[in-house]
């Protein structure tokens, strides 16, 4: 079994990739999917697994720099790292690599070199830096054929293969075969876009050695650090004085508020780190005089905490209005029944009746001042966001 080293992904894959099997990271253009293959390679080098890296867009030298930017030192893994250089010959550069592809535009030449590398270094992991790039150079037909040939040798040399593939608008047939036929597992690496791509996610769309789990993870790439689970924007809204700012400070690892005389006049911003998942969280003011800016604050949010003061039923209609004003109505939402420590605080079920909230919106009790219930609330919202992707 070879692990991918991507957060949560090995869980989704039931431990990793079995020997002789192949996985493709199917990447939406512009999304930082190329780091996935690098991270899988480095993760395994660290574990003492032999890694063969087929480069096609950069010289071995530049490749080492790219790994280093991510905080991964390839030099300390010299014995285990084998580079197949399918780049240098393309631009007429000299190469000192033992495995040099003479003609990177010819799939036979690539296959020959990879096979030699595998023969001399069996039982490891083969990572192809950019299969789409090979396809651009060698053509769609030939590259699909190459993949079939690859898989025969993989089994022969007890190797696992991982390919990065940027899904440019190739022919439908090519994309279909990549998705359905040529790999044992397909991990989709996509972007959440409105006017720009502002969030990135990955999820397993096919796997033939275990049950496919319908799970998706949002991420960003940190330098150094690599692929980390990350939610770019969670919004916190709710009526005046409900405890929004307090909630943000209690849930965040670090946070700032723009407050004056005890009320928020611009916005709150916090950053959450929780069990390897991080998130940026933004709060709105509650006072009605700020209503005109609410719709600006809600843009690109992926989920919402609606904070209410459980002792103030008269503010509940306002709470619902704020979902509309921030244009977040319909997004994954968790209602925080705050100030449960005060006498007269309504319990979540009563609150649901009173607010006429549908069953599928979770309402969680909390005391923001003492951080009670905030972690549960975060995990619940995460779950809703991931399900909704």
């Amino acid at each position: 079994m070879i692990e991918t080293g991507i957060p949560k992904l090995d869980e989704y894959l039931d431990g990793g990739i079995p020997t002789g099997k192949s996985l493709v990271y199917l990447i939406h253009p512009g999304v930082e999917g190329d780091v996935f293959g690098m991270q899988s390679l480095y993760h395994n080098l660290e574990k003492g697994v032999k890694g063969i890296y087929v480069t096609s867009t950069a010289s071995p030298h530049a490749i080492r720099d790219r790994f280093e930017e991510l905080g991964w030192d390839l030099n300390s893994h010299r014995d285990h790292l084998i580079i197949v250089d399918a780049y240098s010959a393309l631009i007429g550069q000299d190469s000192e690599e033992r495995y040099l592809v003479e003609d990177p535009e010819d799939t036979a030449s690539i296959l020959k070199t990879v096979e030699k590398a595998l023969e001399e270094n069996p039982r490891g992991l083969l990572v192809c830096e950019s299969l789409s790039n090979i396809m651009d150079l060698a053509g769609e037909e030939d590259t699909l054929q190459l993949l079939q040939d690859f898989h025969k040798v993989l089994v022969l040399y007890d190797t696992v293969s991982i390919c990065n593939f940027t899904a440019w608008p190739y022919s439908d047939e090519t994309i279909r075969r990549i998705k359905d036929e040529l790999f044992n597992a397909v991990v989709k690496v996509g972007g959440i876009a409105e006017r720009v791509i502002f969030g990135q996610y990955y999820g397993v769309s096919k796997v033939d050695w275990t049950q496919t789990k319908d799970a998706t993870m949002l991420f960003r790439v940190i330098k150094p650090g690599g692929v980390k689970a990350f939610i770019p924007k969670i919004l916190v809204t709710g009526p005046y004085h409900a405890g929004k700012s307090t909630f943000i400070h209690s849930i965040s690892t670090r946070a700032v508020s723009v407050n004056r005389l005890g009320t928020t006049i611009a916005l709150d911003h916090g950053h959450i780190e929780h069990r390897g998942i991080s998130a940026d969280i933004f709060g709105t003011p509650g006072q009605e005089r700020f209503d005109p800016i609410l719709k600006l604050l809600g843009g690109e949010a992926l989920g919402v905490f609606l904070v209410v003061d459980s002792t103030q039923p008269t503010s509940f209609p306002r709470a619902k209005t704020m979902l509309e004003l921030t244009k977040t109505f319909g997004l994954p939402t968790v209602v925080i029944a705050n100030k449960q420590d005060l006498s007269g605080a309504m319990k979540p079920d009563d609150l649901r009746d009173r607010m006429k909230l549908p069953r599928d919106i979770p309402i969680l009790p909390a005391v923001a001042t003492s951080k009670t219930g905030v972690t549960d609330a975060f995990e619940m919202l995460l779950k809703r966001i991931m399900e909704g992707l």
Partner: protein
Amino acid sequence: MSDYKLGIPGLEEVVPVVKGGTNIMLIGPPMSGKEVIANNILYSGLAQGESGILVTTSMSGEDALKWFKDNGLDLEPHKPRLGIVDCMSQTIGLAIGDTENIKRVSSPVNLTGISVGITNFFEDFWMKKQVRKARLCVYSLSTMLMYSNLQTVFRFLHVFTGRIKTADALGIYVVEQGMHDDATINTLKQLLDGVLEVKVENDSCFLRAMGMSQKPTKWYEYEVEGSKINIKYSYVRPAPP
């Protein structure tokens, strides 16, 4: 829907604004001042508070910055909204990393890397800096075509012209005339809405715009003076009857 001013004074009399989502090919022979035109369009956006992304395939990011400086175009106030995707430095073996304004891509063949660079800047300007108007300038498609075949560059362009449309931004793609056959140019044009065409005749440079106003504009003679494009015989509005 946003409007974009190209920032070339004489031309603006006939093409006052270009609509958001427009993709333009800037084509002309070598030494005709295309670079100055492209940089002017980019800079005029920055000066109006927009963001600007420059993809350079034959110049390092540092040299691009230096050009503006040498020509007295102050980038300092605009740096938070400026992004350069430098596909050149690492190609020639320089081991230099990213900076605040420059992201390096291993080589022009690495279209995946270029697409990540552009996308990251777009996201940063939109999400963090809250800038809603953006210009993208790819300098040049011709170099990309030296490294990748037409079909590959076409796919790349297909994706990014689409992104420019969704983002309501402005895209400028520079092409060297004389380096490609007509079929290649025409294929690329299919994805673009307009053309800024430059020609050189008897040592004089001319410019015209197609697809940005009702009819193609006439040819304007211009001179390049440092960082400036001076249209010589400016369009004179006919007097009302």
